[in-house]
């Protein structure tokens, strides 16, 4: 059955019932429709894990690649054909573990793509091991006594790397997440959203209810998104075992740093350039 132009596909969804991924998929689709983008002009690039399956279900062009490598793939697609809207999707294992180096440099590079991270604090597809974002004390089969190291803080890392759009969403607040993805799509640069996504099967700490009690919307509290110092302070807010700190959502930081232009990048997309035999002939002259 052919897929249709209704941002849907024939693929059977294999996520667990009640999974936070459904909310993220729906928010992404709603944001793309609101942005009036044609599916054929959008490329979604996914990592491996439950998050990467968004590629299969969205109804846009996709490259469903390797664990951790969505950002290099997205970079390649966008550099070759800047006319395409490129969205990289991955999980916390993809973006903060296996592909952490790519993420650090993606913040620096500031290419004009959107990056969505399904952050559920646990490895789902491999059945319940700790993730880089598992909190201290989070018990798993591999570490029954709990994770021994502090969780990776993607927002603080992004700010340190000079990221130009750093935000956090919540899979349980569809309206807010849709608006956030819409803002990232409009942003000229690397639009990064860490999305809190409850895992109904393996993470019994960070549940929908746990998040609902703690998340708050930065926009409602007069946060200045151009203030890097304020953003850094917000990025460090996270509940401890004893403390009662809340979890900020929304845009932490946004700057107008120019989006990346590749070295020697020609005026139009390279996929449209005409072949010029003269280049080789002239270059050979340098070796006479």
């Amino acid at each position: 059955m052919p897929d249709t132009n209704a941002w849907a596909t024939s693929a059977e969804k294999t996520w667990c019932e009640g999974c936070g991924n459904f909310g993220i998929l729906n928010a992404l689709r709603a944001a793309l429709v609101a942005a009036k983008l044609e599916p054929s002009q959008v490329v979604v690039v996914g990592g491996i894990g439950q998050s990467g399956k968004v590629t299969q279900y969205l109804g846009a062009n996709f490259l469903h690649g390797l664990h951790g490598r969505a950002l290099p793939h997205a970079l390649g697609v966008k550099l070759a054909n800047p006319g395409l809207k490129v969205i990289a999707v991955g999980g916390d294992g993809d973006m903060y573990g296996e592909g952490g180096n790519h993420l650090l440099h993606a913040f620096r590079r500031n290419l004009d793509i959107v990056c969505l991270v399904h952050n559920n604090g646990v490895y789902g597809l491999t059945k319940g091991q700790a993730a880089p974002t598992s909190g201290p004390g989070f018990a798993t089969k591999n570490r029954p006594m709990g994770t021994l190291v502090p969780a990776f803080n993607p927002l603080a890392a992004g700010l340190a790397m000079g990221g130009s759009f750093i935000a956090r969403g919540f899979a349980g607040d569809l309206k807010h997440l849709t608006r956030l993805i819409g803002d990232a799509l409009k942003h000229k640069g690397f639009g990064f959203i860490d999305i809190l996504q409850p895992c109904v099967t393996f993470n019994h700490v960070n549940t929908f209810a746990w998040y609902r009690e703690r998340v708050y919307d930065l926009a409602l509290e007069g946060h200045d998104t151009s203030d890097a110092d304020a953003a850094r302070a917000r990025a460090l807010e996270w509940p401890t075992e004893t403390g009662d700190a809340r979890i900020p959502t929304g845009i932490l930081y946004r700057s107008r740093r120019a989006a990346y232009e590749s070295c020697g990048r020609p005026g139009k997309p390279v996929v449209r350039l005409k072949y010029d035999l003269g280049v080789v002939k002239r270059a050979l002259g340098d070796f006479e």
Partner: protein
Amino acid sequence: MNELHLIVAGQAGQGLQVISRTLGRLLVRAGYHVFVSQDVMSRIRGGHNFARVRVSTRPVAADGDKAEILIALDTKLVGKHTADLAPDAVVVTDAAGDLPEGLNAMRLPLIDLAREHGKDPVMVNAVAVGAALALVGLEPAGLEDLFRSQFASKGEDVVRRNMAAAEAGYRAVVEDVKRSCPHKLVTLGTVPVRGQSPGAERGDRVLISGAEAIALGAIAANVRVVTGYPMSPATPIVEYCFRHAQEAGLIVEQTEDEVSAANLAIGAAFAGARAMTCTAGGGFCLMNEALSLAGMTETPLVLCVGMRPGPATGFATRTAQADLLFSIYAGHGEFPRAVLTPADAGQAFHAAQDAFRIAEMYQTPVIILFDQFMADALWTVERSELRVENRQEAKGKGEMANDRSGRMNRQERQVPEGEEAYGYRRYEMSESGVSPRLLPGTPQQLVYADSDEHNEAGHITESAAMRVRMVDKRNAKTAGIRQELGAPKVEVKVEAEVEAEAETLVFCLGSSRGVVAEAVARLRDKGRKVVMVHLSHVWPFPAETVARLVEKIEKVVTVEQNYSGQLAQLLSQECGLRVAGTVRRYDGRQFTVAEVEAGLEELIGEKVD
């Protein structure tokens, strides 16, 4: 004398490559064939680097034996080369420092001349070029044009100072000869200049490195995206592309690591740009998962993989042929690929074009496997050999689509005829294994590329039946690639030689070709019935060609730069051949003609008359 050999030695950072290239180009312009090899240490400053320059009236593709001229910018280095010198070789070196006894030495104030005339001690390289020209008997006048083309971007002052320094070096030799003769000078004065025969003009030949030839071949094949993480010996390919990015319309990305380099190229290729990534064995290890992904997603990808001695870091700046089997088997799972093994700059220029053509036609990865020696050496190539092939295909703007029969179709961005909206299937079954290729961005169609096992549309499947069909489809492409590559560039001459009662066949690959060819020629002069076969591609293995060649042969041997005789293993595995022996070298240095000759003689056994 038909040949002359120079060694130019100095410390890292003294511009030895500038000296050997400038001298080499001037000699090529004068009509000679030149071969330059580099011996470089893995350090930034100091140490002991040298270049060998062989000048001849006939084509040369290997170092010669003893050198008649040594130019040592640092007196301490002279002692390291005494064994490389012919009797009465002229040794030019700085006036400072002690020298071994008994040398035909010409002590010149090289560094002082550089300071005085070039206004900078670094101009010692220009002084050396001038001195070398005087020694071989060429006028320095032609240098100005060369310096201008080399240093145009650095300004007229740099050109002038280089010229002044070179002229000072030239004069110093001429005056020294007048003052303290008799220096027995070996000059080219007696060597007939073939290229100056009527009709031959400057520009008939070029002096180009293997790495530059790969880069230029890729540009000729319409490459648009080049990626890499610096690693010797692949770095010069990326650097050449960086320098020409604007003019040639390239995107050149130095990524955070090799994993990113390979995957970025896959993303770009998926979007429709011809893409290439460049690395050495260690970086290629990191790219293996991406290689496998290109096979699974059926994405055209060209990988330039340079061989240096491993395992691990090994010798960073030296040569080897030990990644032959690795490149054939790299990547998990089973998928089609081609592995090309060019011998020299001329072959490298064509290998790059072949690589892109095959990658694009068969939508799969192609590896250009080269050794460090090939990449860094400077080769004299006839301009007429550097043809741009398949111009029509190259003109496809990198948006090549394949029609239903798997042929490349230049009408890019067109939906296959009769395709309903959103009906495109990226992995549609076909006899050749090649599916029609659309690019993302095509109106009313969606393109799915999937790393998971997938159905024809590109969606994940767990179907056992579909899995078998897809494995068969992908691997069916090997037959087409084999046909497209044809016989390796085994010269017609070889076939004729084999016909004429050859008894021993010598197989080799990569840059060994030049050395083995000379060794085999010497053996044939001695009456040995031996013929060389060089494999310009090793995968899919040209089993039919090899089987035909060895039909009436008594003995098969190999010459290769590794410990375990990997080419011999391949011949045995693919053709059932029993290889009688292997001449091996694995110290990171290129074979010499003499050692291959001796090694082969031993393997061939006693001459029976």
